């Protein structure tokens, strides 16, 4: 064996776990789900192949309304997450001292040590009619009776922003960290106002980080399950819930699989559109924000 062979073999061995993971955990299950989505149930235990499940989705307004609702709320959440996350990321990367920086990152990370479910229940304890916020408001005399802050779309949005904001902050902060401070100083020296410097220099430089963060946040939100259901209550229609209902309550695996494929296609399409509109490509986004 030549040295080159050895090197190639080493590379292959190092890549093998990753390739196996992609193949066994991602590609094969999706192919299986796709095959299932083309199966039509004629009668108990009798099946044929065809596009009926996809047509059913188009014919039933409840389903595509839910998908559109999920997508639009996810986009709103992504935008809000950016608005909330950008100042924090900027502060961490550019203003905070070395020690404060670490503490701030840690403060952002701590909520992630607790499971999704516990965090959602935390919100419920705070916001329910007999909860902490309602009691405090009554005690201070701002409101007369108990207020219900749960079970509406605004609460769902707040809960989702809270859950995913870290995934916006980290790529943003690391992109901004790589930015030379002299670029900002030069902007001011040339007479730019704070706003102009932000708009013409900082944001364009941070674009790959913004896009990377947005993609992660959008995907996490569109695919989330617990937060929208627990905080949304009786009117929460979330597409993942629809998939669960098809699989579990209706025993309709075919239609559940169809919805799964549709969610994947739809979110991928949205991300592709976002990349096109922002003039970024997946390659530059990932490469720069990781730098």
């Amino acid at each position: 064996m030549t040295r080159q062979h050895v090197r190639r073999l080493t590379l292959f061995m190092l890549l093998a776990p990753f390739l196996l993971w992609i193949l066994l955990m991602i590609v094969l299950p999706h192919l299986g789900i796709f095959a299932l989505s083309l199966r039509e149930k004629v009668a108990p235990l009798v099946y044929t192949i065809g596009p009926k499940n996809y047509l059913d989705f188009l014919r039933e307004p409840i389903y595509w309304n839910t998908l559109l609702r999920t997508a639009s709320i996810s986009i709103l959440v992504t935008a809000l997450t950016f608005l909330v996350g950008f100042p924090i990321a900027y502060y961490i990367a550019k203003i905070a001292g070395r020690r404060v920086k670490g503490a701030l990152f840690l403060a952002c990370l701590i909520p992630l040590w607790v499971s999704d479910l516990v965090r959602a229940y935390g919100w419920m304890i705070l916001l329910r009619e007999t909860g902490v916020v309602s009691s405090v408001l009554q005690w201070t005399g701002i409101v007369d009776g108990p207020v219900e802050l749960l079970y509406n779309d605004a609460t769902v949005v707040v809960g989702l922003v809270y859950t995913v904001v870290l995934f916006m902050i980290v790529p943003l902060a690391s992109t901004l960290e790589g930015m030379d401070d002299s670029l900002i100083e030069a902007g001011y020296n040339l007479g730019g106002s704070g706003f102009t410097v932000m708009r013409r220099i900082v944001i364009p430089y941070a674009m790959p980080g913004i896009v990377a963060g947005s993609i992660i946040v959008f995907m996490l939100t569109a695919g989330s399950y617990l937060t929208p259901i627990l905080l949304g209550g009786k009117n929460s229609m979330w597409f993942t819930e629809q998939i669960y209902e098809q699989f579990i309550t209706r025993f309709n695996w075919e239609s559940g699989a169809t919805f799964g494929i549709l969610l994947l296609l739809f979110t991928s399409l949205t991300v592709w559109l976002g990349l096109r509109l922002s003039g970024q490509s997946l390659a530059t986004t990932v490469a720069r924000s990781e730098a």
Partner: protein
Amino acid sequence: MRACKLFPALLSALLVAMSASSWAQDTLRLLTWGSYAPENVIERFEKETGIEVEVTYSNNEEMISKLRATGGGGFDLAQPSHDRIHAAQLEYNIYKPMDLSMIDTSVYDTSLLGAVKENTTIDGETYSVPHFWGTSGLVVNRKEAPDLKSFSDLCDPRYKGRISMRLKRTILIGMGYAMGEDPFAAYGNMTEYGRIIDAAAEKLIECKDNVKTYWTGGDDLSNLLRSGEIVASDAWDGTAFKLNTENSDINFTPPAHGALGWIDTFTLPRKTRAEEAAYKWINFVMQPDVAKMMSSHSGYVTAHRNGGDLTSDQLKQSFNDAFSRQDIANIKWFANIPPGLEDIEGKVLERIKAAR
């Protein structure tokens, strides 16, 4: 060199994992409902038999779906309701017939045992024995809603935002009965049944304003009632009896049109790996003193022939406070669900959830 040290460690970990699965006879993987496997009962069983019990909490739909996904594997004993055996077995082949000679059937209430046998016998093979029975009806805070007596009263505008429901098939059927129909009798006729649940759904959509939120589990419902956020809901009687012991204003109310009766069973998944342990568990929990522990914990009555007495005095009191003799005679027992029914119901339930 580090890799060389790591390898034996990995190998031994693998061996431990493998031997753990070959020791499966010593564990019983139980798929059941929340509150059906109290800690003190499990501890006693483990001490007496040396068999470890692994509990997974679930509900009817999830039990069937989980077993369907594995072809009846992954669990050694399941507890679906009596009406969920027949169709699921015919369509998905997920259960295994029971060897009734392994079970001491003399301790059972003969009518419950007979009813479950009748519902779950396919081609001469019996698939289930009963464990707990109970009813679905209303849980009412009688101080806040003294005259709430029927499923249709859940739609009374006086209780706007003060009602909860579980958005599952029970609410459709209960509402159907409240509207003077007979949903169980219509099981065989899909168009007739579809008409009944469509009408029920219309009514439920109309009064969605009354609903604060849909509950999904017993704890969920208990919290809503305890905190006073809701005054009534559809409910399982056991959950309501438990609440009654905390707050005497809250108790179960069998609806005027009859409470809906179910029997949760013991059923073997097709690929059970610890059949013997499963029979041991079944016989163990039906001993009078263990049945009493179980019943006091869950709030439901066991299928033991003295089931009504084998529970805590408090729960006995709650039961007698809720049910008159006539209410018991009026219970409508869930009939076997024909295949495909749940798909129709699911669609109707989606419509209710999506309505604004």
